[in-house]
């Protein structure tokens, strides 16, 4: 009965209640979409970091990370990678957990063209393995990948680097490096491809040659590598594989993409903080609107409430009646807001939102320009719960006000 009275009272002033319900619906939808935007933003970033740069796990000899000298390498890298693919399997399905592995050798040095020279980070890759781990096909803007050209000693550099060196496709450049024995060595390479990655910082320094060429130049065994990058079928297996590798190879550093790109964790925590503040602000605004409406509703009904107390409705029941009314008023908009969000997500969650108008700044930091919104379904009930608490909080003052009426004053005033 209290619920029935509360429900009917909500609709006593239809317009006023609809305003609040609409405000709540808009507030809930706005919050959920902002959350989806943030999640999508970070998710898109993480995804591009994984597939275009870091993969899930990277393995380096600890000494190499410290000194960056060619002599600290992982021997027989191809035998190792084959072994890992074979051993790490899903316990239930038996499917391999590892999707692809790329073993690379690495060196720092100078790239020299007839016009200019620059410091570079040289990656020696196995063409097929590397392409399976990193989506070079999306980043290669001109020319071809290794193996698709007959040229000897091919090199792939970024478009940006080509601009700096004032060279074009098919031109020659020279790499000056330090060998495993500590001697300066150099080799000539022909440019077969130009890439553009998601990060302009990376475009400044990275060049790719074939592992066999780099190892020869560095006087390393042909299977030597300084870095092994692992791409998983499902990121869920990451911890398990990392732990197992750490135990097996104490001299090597095993890092996941979050450790390799600490900004991801920063984003996560910043995002949570921002969302917390945002939710707080929106809920505060809604509290004010609900309290305001309910206070009006209670004050204009003081005679009725006084009469109810006079005939014997106790304070607890009156309090409860107002709380119910506020809860209905404050939460009726939430499902509408969620439905709106759900509908909007059908578009934003698949096609995404194009931010190319602001893309210059974003690309420099390694962000994609199209944000695919992503909303963890748990947010729906989290926001629903928050809204419920908000309405409950908003109910307290008007309900308290209502039970403070003195029946005799309410009844006898004319």
């Amino acid at each position, binding site marked *: *009965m209290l619920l029935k*009275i509360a429900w*009917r*009272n909500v609709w*006593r002033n239809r317009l006023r209640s609809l305003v609040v319900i609409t405000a709540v619906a808009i507030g809930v939808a706005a919050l959920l979409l902002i959350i989806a935007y943030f999640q999508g933003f970070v998710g898109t970033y993480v995804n591009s970091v994984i597939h275009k740069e870091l993969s899930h796990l990277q393995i380096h000899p600890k000494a190499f990370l410290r000194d960056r000298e060619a002599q600290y390498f992982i021997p027989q890298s191809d035998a190792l990678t084959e072994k890992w693919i074979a051993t790490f399997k899903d316990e239930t399905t038996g499917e391999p957990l590892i999707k692809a592995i790329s073993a690379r050798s690495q060196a720092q040095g100078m790239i020299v063209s007839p016009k200019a020279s620059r410091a570079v980070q040289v990656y020696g890759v196995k063409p097929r393995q590397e392409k399976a781990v990193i989506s070079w096909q999306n980043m290669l803007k001109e020319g071809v990948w290794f193996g698709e050209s007959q040229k000897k000693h091919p090199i792939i550099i970024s478009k940006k680097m080509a601009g700096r060196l004032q060279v074009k496709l098919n031109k020659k450049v020279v790499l000056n490096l330090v060998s495993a024995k500590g001697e300066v060595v150099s080799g000539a390479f022909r440019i077969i491809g130009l890439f553009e990655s998601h990060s302009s910082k990376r475009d400044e320094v990275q060049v790719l040659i074939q592992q066999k060429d780099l190892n020869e130049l560095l006087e390393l065994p042909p299977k030597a590598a300084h870095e092994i990058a692992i791409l998983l079928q499902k990121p869920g297996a990451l911890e398990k594989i990392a732990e197992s590798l750490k135990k097996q190879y104490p001299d090597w550093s095993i890092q996941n993409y979050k450790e390799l790109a600490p900004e991801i964790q920063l984003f996560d925590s910043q995002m949570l903080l921002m969302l917390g503040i945002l939710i707080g602000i929106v809920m505060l605004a809604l509290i004010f609107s609900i309290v305001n409406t309910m206070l009006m509703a209670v004050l204009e009904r003081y*005679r*009725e409430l006084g*009469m*109810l*107390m*006079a*005939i*014997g*409705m*106790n*304070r607890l*029941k009156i309090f409860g009646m107002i709380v119910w009314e506020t809860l209905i008023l404050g939460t009726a908009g939430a499902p509408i807001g969620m439905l709106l969000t759900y509908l909007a997500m059908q578009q934003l969650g698949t096609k995404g939102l194009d931010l190319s108008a602001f893309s210059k700044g974003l690309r420099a930091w390694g962000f994609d320009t199209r944000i695919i919104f992503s909303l963890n379904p748990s947010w729906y009930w989290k926001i629903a719960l928050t809204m419920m608490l908000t309405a409950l909080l908003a109910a307290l003052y008007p309900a308290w006000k209502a039970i403070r009426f003195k*029946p*005799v004053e309410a*009844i*006898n005033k004319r």
Partner: protein
Amino acid sequence: MSLIETRQLTKTYNPETVPVHALRGVDLCIEKGEFTAIVGPSGSGKTTLLNIIGGLDKPSSGQVLINQTDIAQLSENQLIDFRRDHIGFVFQAYNLIPVLTARENVSFIMLLQKRPAAERKARAMELLEAVGIAEKADVRPIYLSGGQQQRVAVARALASRPDFVLADEPTANLDSVATKRLLDIMARLNEEEGMTFIFSTHDQRVIDRARRIIRLEDGKITQDETP
């Protein structure tokens, strides 16, 4: 032992600032089954007296005993329950919950008393029939005339099976036909069911129907007659 007994009731409003002596020592006994009018000029203290007897207001001094219970001893919350179970109220206006139908309004007080649903339903209909408004049972108060609303209020007042019904100028907003009808109903309930009614009024036609007339003047009883 009287149903209601007041002893040296006084009520002074604004004792600190501009004291208004609304009641100056009212001694009164009301027995079960009475049909009593409190009359007197405006400002004589009729409403004040009814409010104090009904436990809606506290006297400045003196006692109110209802069935030997000193209602001053009850806490605010006990008093609310006491009113619910022992006193029926009919006010001049704003008697009914606007969002409930006539029948729901009558049931509501029994719901507060936690009476079973079947009893609530039966008694609500029975009372609405007794006040001649059964055909409007499922209508909300705004669709009822003033007289019909007051009759629903009488039905509501009786629904809780109170010891007595207090009615402060129940006919003040009614025309003479509606006034007569309401009085007929109250008198019949008094005669047939023995329900005690205490009502205040200015209206001579209402005074004429009373079986006991208590006249208040300037906060004192000046006349108490049983014609």
